[in-house]
């Protein structure tokens, strides 16, 4: 039998203040970045136009920038390395569907003589749609969080546990969101799907440990809560790390080999799955302990 993690006896509870400090720092960093730089929200939420073109012959970004400038439009330019492709993004309210994209195309045509290009992608999101998408996604997420709290409270006969699980989940989502802002990555609907995946994964991870705590409470009714939490986390440590290692492996391959289109998605999943593992051990269970102790 290969055993990666043998029997451990780490006192997680005693180190909870260190964990809280680390998490606090990570959350604050994310918040600071969002406050200073702002979240790089995608067209899905801001509305606007995206035009992605691929040139047949090599072209520099300076030439593309010049072409966009000549169209009298302020657009963000993203290059796709090795593909000779550029994404031009114009965010903000735009009332008419093809107006901005057509202007950009004209500018490109006039300024890149001798080089032809094809349109790879074109997005237009009107102002109403952007608002609607964010509103609906947020509403759905908030409702599902309440659903989780209620179910966990019911199954573990304690609302504190559900709340702690949800706090750990929010922690993971927020840290991931902050990491997106720090690395200037754009948050679009696909990234929202990644954040949802992270939330689901984080709560799954937490519940497994809660389950062990529930079992141990019955087994050792006289055990102090701190010790109980430690025993439960240690007992499930092997499973926690193995499951998470396999998931991390998959996400890492997606991040490295998945290509440009899903790169942001894979990045979010990468950060989120690391956070998810950490928060289960370092946030969710210590929070339960902290909370219960204060009540006594």
């Amino acid at each position, binding site marked *: 039998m290969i055993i990666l993690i043998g029997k451990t006896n780490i006192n997680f509870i005693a180190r909870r203040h260190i964990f809280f400090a680390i998490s606090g720092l990570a959350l604050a960093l994310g918040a600071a970045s969002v406050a200073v730089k702002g979240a790089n929200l995608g067209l899905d939420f801001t509305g606007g136009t995206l035009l992605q073109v691929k040139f047949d012959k090599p072209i520099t970004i300076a030439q593309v920038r010049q072409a966009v400038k000549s169209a009298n439009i302020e657009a963000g330019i993203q290059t796709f390395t090795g593909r000779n492709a550029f994404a031009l993004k114009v965010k903000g309210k735009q009332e008419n569907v093809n107006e901005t994209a057509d202007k950009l195309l004209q500018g490109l045509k006039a300024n890149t003589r001798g080089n032809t290009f094809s349109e*790879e*992608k*074109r*997005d237009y999101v009107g102002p109403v749609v952007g608002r*609607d998408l964010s509103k609906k996604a947020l509403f*759905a997420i908030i409702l599902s969080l309440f659903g989780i709290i209620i179910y966990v409270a019911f199954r573990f006969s304690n609302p504190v546990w559900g709340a702690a699980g949800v706090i750990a989940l929010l922690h993971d989502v927020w840290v991931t969101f902050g990491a997106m802002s720090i690395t200037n990555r754009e948050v679009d*609907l696909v990234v929202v799907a990644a954040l949802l995946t992270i939330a689901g994964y984080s709560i799954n991870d937490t519940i497994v440990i809660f389950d062990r705590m529930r079992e141990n409470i019955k087994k050792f009714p006289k055990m102090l809560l701190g010790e109980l939490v430690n025993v439960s986390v240690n007992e499930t440590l092997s*499973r926690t790390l193995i*499951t998470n290692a396999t998931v991390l492996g998959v996400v890492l391959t997606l991040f490295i080999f998945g290509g440009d289109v899903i790169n942001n998605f894979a990045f979010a*999943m990468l950060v989120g799955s690391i956070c998810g593992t950490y928060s289960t051990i370092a946030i969710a269970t210590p929070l339960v302990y902290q909370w219960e102790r204060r009540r006594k």
Partner: protein
Amino acid sequence: MNVLHWKLGLVLGLLILSIWLLYPTVEWYTKPAEERGKLEAIKMRPRRILNLGLDLRGGTHMLLELDVEKLDKKTNLADALVRAIEIIRNRIDQYGVGETPISRQGERWISVDLPGISNTEEAEDLIGRTALLEFRLVNTSPEAEKALARVAELNESPFAKGGALSPEIAKLMPKGALLFRAASEEDGARTKYYVLESTVPVTGAYLENARVETDSQFGTPNIAFTFNKEGGKIFESFTGDNVGKYLAIVLDDVVHSAPVIKSRIGGGSGVIEGSFTIETARNLAIVLRAGALPAPVKIIEKRVVGPDLGEDSIKKGLTASVIGFLAVVLFMVVYYKAGGFVANLAIGLNVILLIAAMSYFSATLTLPGIAGMILSLAMAIDANVLILERMREEMALSKPIPLIIPTAYDKAWSAILDSNVTTWIAAIFLFQFGSGPVKGFAVTLTIGLLCGMFTSVFVTRAVYEFWLTSNPKELSI
């Protein structure tokens, strides 16, 4: 026959059923792209297969908004939306593209998907046209002449941006008359205007058919139309009462021609002359046949993914997923040996069941949908790991093998159930209240969770129980 045989039979039966359900999907996607395109155009695409979302296969997604303010006050909004969807579907169908999902979204939005089409100018024109055909008499009173003379002196359009007539011209207009623009004849020519009566005796609602006809004299394309019986009667008596007057043919508030009524027109048919090209005439005939939209629609969202980009993202994503998946499979066998092999069987079956179920429901796979699949697979792997770790714990207590298996399953069960149900609760809310991509995520997640619970708990246990019948001495995990 004992319980175990039933269990194994059920698993085997499900496997066969899944393969049978998967067959059309596999067959479809192994066909060359051109052949698929041809079959789609004649609507021979099999119904129960897994669809690829526009982000994966290329195509155009549009969201249209019905302009409620221009809707007839008497019509109910929901009815108008249903009618608009029907009409847009008719128009696109006649245009001859394959499967085009059109659905209502929210209160007054219509979502239109055009898979495989990335040059959408014509399609947009086709969809966006109101195609309201009206016949109105031309007002030839002296006041009308005066108003037109004043309009001709203006250096700008007499219509303000919102479409309202400028106050100066409005004062000059005769009572019960409206100003209309004429279709532009050639580039750069001054736009002509007409003053028409505000009453509309006949509309396109009575149209039975419309088709392109070539003018015998000039060879230019015209549109010939036929009224239905009722419309024919109204048209006949109306033209009979107004011989000698000018009749304007107005399409979407633009006058196409205004011939003089020479005599009573019987037979219920007529011709719209105008400066059409073959293409515009063809598209116009399509929209006239399909009927008028209850109110104009506006494109409020449009997403076009070129065919190469979609294919590229699939290839890369698929390769990466396969590498990751193989790594996990390999790890499980190395780490858990025979136990890992059983877990891999379950996970493999999980993938087959999941895709078969999605094919059966004709679900559409998008990037967020793949995210949902990854989460459900990760949770299935987790369930297997949970069970295997429990087995190891029980083994450490030196229990006999026939006792280890059921105890491990019993103890792992509550964690597996609770974590799956929690995620499932989230998925339900996301499905109910989310839109588009969020919904796609929820659908694959829900199906994936169900398949995962079944394969990692029920199937693996059946395999172990079968193995127990051989009275094994050692458990290799």
